[in-house]
């Protein structure tokens, strides 16, 4: 600690370079955080998928429905604990750019299936009583400045006409990665007003007794409905979500790989800068040694300086990234979750320390082994 003034004086001697080095480190770590955020928002569904839940959809594709009668039959399959279902509504609030997902849900069973979503009991009861009621995720509620009791008109695109809903409750999520942009309403209301054949649902979510048993149960479900006019494909929630992510295909890969290359380049340049600034002062280090600093102490001093650069830059970068995510999703609802995860922060700290250590270690070793006489002569 007593060397702190010396360290600070060293940081302050070429202010501009210090600022630039720390600045580019800040940028690198900001970029790192941003890539983590982007990766997270693409992978969100996979991250939060319940291990004990299966998704049952029409074998042909997700847009094809399944009969509501399957609920009963799914419940009878060995290993299945609970069953719920939902349908995609695909409506528009005011204009298409105000996108958020709307689901028609089975009011009796949906809440029990997704314990990660928290709704006060009173609100849920209000919702259950009101056929035109809806529950809105916190993010969507705040995005449009809605409050409980508001009437929300949604223009149907698949189902026809203007649909009115009354907000009866708002749901929050237990984890940051959970999607709180959804909008739920009564399946019965949809079923009543639909211009299409009644009693068809979009997909089923099934909870199984034993997560290790997911494969056999999924197979049993598909076999149960094989050769019927509505064949099914059943997979774990994770696999289902991963399927979506895979379909994003190259876009995600390209953005992430480009970003990573850049980040590493930035780190290399920064590392180079830091070692440069230490190499320039080699004769000063010789002076330190001449007045009695031991090799280990010199090593420590130099390392402390480069780690100091890194830590300040890393801290700034990650904090800025955090601030940036607080201002919300920049694409206006296309990315339902947009936040800096603890994991990313931990990796960021790891990278910070590593770069600080590596870029400082070569000049530090040089400094440690420095022959005083040689160094002094160089001046």
């Amino acid at each position, binding site marked *: 600690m007593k060397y702190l003034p010396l360290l600070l004086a060293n940081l302050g001697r070429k202010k501009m370079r210090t600022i630039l080095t720390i*600045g580019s480190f800040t940028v690198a770590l900001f970029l790192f955080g941003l890539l983590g955020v982007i990766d997270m928002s693409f992978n969100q569904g996979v991250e939060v998928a319940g291990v004990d839940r299966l998704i049952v959809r029409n074998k042909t594709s997700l847009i094809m429905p399944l009969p509501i009668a399957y609920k009963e039959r799914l419940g009878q399959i060995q290993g299945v604990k609970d069953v719920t279902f939902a349908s995609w509504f695909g409506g528009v609030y005011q204009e298409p750019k105000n996108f958020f997902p709307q689901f028609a849900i089975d009011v009796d069973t949906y809440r029990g299936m997704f314990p990660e979503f928290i709704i006060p009991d009173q609100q849920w009861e209000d919702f259950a009583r009101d056929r035109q009621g809806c529950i809105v995720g916190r993010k969507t509620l705040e995005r449009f400045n809605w409050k409980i009791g508001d009437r929300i008109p949604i223009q149907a695109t698949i189902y026809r006409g203007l649909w009115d809903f009354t907000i009866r409750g708002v749901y929050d999520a237990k984890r940051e990665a959970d999607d709180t942009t959804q909008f739920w309403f009564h399946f019965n209301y949809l079923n009543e007003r639909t211009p299409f054949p009644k009693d068809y649902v979009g997909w089923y979510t099934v909870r199984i007794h034993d997560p290790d048993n997911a494969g056999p149960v999924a197979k049993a479900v598909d076999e149960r409905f094989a050769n019927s006019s509505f064949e099914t494909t059943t997979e774990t929630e994770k696999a289902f979500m991963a399927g979506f992510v895979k379909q994003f295909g190259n876009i995600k890969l390209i953005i992430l790989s480009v970003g990573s290359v850049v980040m590493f380049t930035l780190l290399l340049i920064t590392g180079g800068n830091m070692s440069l600034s230490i190499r320039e002062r080699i004769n000063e280090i010789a002076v330190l040694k001449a007045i009695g600093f031991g090799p280990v102490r010199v090593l420590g001093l130099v390392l402390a300086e480069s780690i100091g650069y890194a830590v300040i830059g890393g801290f700034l970068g990650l904090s800025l990234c955090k601030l940036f995510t607080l201002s919300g999703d920049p694409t206006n609802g296309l990315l339902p979750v947009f936040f800096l995860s603890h994991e990313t922060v931990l990796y960021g700290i790891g990278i910070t320390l590593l770069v600080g250590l590596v870029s400082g270690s070569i000049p530090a070793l040089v400094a440690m082994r420095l022959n005083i006489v040689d160094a002094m002569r160089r001046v």
Partner: protein
Amino acid sequence: MAIPLIYNVRSIQGRFSSTLVALFSIAGVVAVLIAMLAMASGFKKTLVASGSAHNAIILRGGATSEMESSLELEQIKIIGDDPRIARDSAGRPLYSAEVVVIAALPLRSSGTDANVQIRGVSQDALAIRDTVKLLKGRFFTPGLAEIVIGKHAQETYSGFDLGKNIHFGGRDWSIVGVFDAGGSAFDSESWCDANVLNQAYKRPENLFQSMTARLTAPAALQDLKNAVSTDPRLTVGVKSEIAYYEEQSVMITTLINVLGFLVAGVMGIGAIFGALNTMYAAVSSRYREIATLRAIGFRGSQVVLSFMLESLIIAFLGGLLGALIILPINGYTASTINWQTFSHMSFAFAVTPDILIQGLLFSLILGFFGGFFPALRAARRPIAPALRGL
């Protein structure tokens, strides 16, 4: 008199290695920016190329995409009788009543399912879309479970080979032809008979999702719109096919553009730091030179100008280099899911002149910010101590 340009050129030569670092970092930023913009514009171009100014697409009123729309045969016939619709040599109106569904089929690359768009069309589909040409095989026979596949679909999904059968919608379809849609979104689709597709997907007979009609002339669109909107039997919306496909690209292009600019913007700040470092180093190693320039009568503003010019030249060269490096990405095929149609689509990166200009402008902005402050410092330095120093 301004400081001659040759001074800057020589001094760049003099500090070749540090100039290279700045140049390459700017080249990298510009390359990334161009790549991102080319990805978004390629995606959009692919969709827009699917439309033709000669065609109108008719959807149910209020529907924003074919997926959401539905049209009865009756309505389609009424619109088909409109004089603004072109006729073939036999005097029949040229239109295709279409059904669009998706089928989940395994990708060649990963074996996992992706949504392939299946379009049920009428016999005239090829006559209306003149960009679509059969490459191999033949068109499907009406009434049979036969399918023709787009060339990107063929590359993307396993089992998509001429002469083979694929299974979806509860039946087998034989692949009888492969078509080339000139790089448009149709290349990722597969086409079959609309009525057969309706049966397979257990949809009501004679219910379609969209109607694409050949207009007598592009200018006839407005007349058709007017005629359709005043007809009480019709509740439909008419759009030019180009406008329709442009709308279908909005979500993904927004996503790519926002993320692309974000990443490139952050990189740009990084590159400015790099440029600043180089220019500051350049300035501080040349205090004596600068002082000499001032001493022989050049004004401070001229020194600033000269240094700015130097920085801009480096940045512009970097931008040029970045553009050249990334140019081969033009035409590179990528694929993604389009949320608006819910299906998988291949598209080619498109590096347009616009994008190149944007990239070069960006490099100049980087050069400006990278050079301005060091140039100021150079000019403000008092002359006498600088000359005496070192």
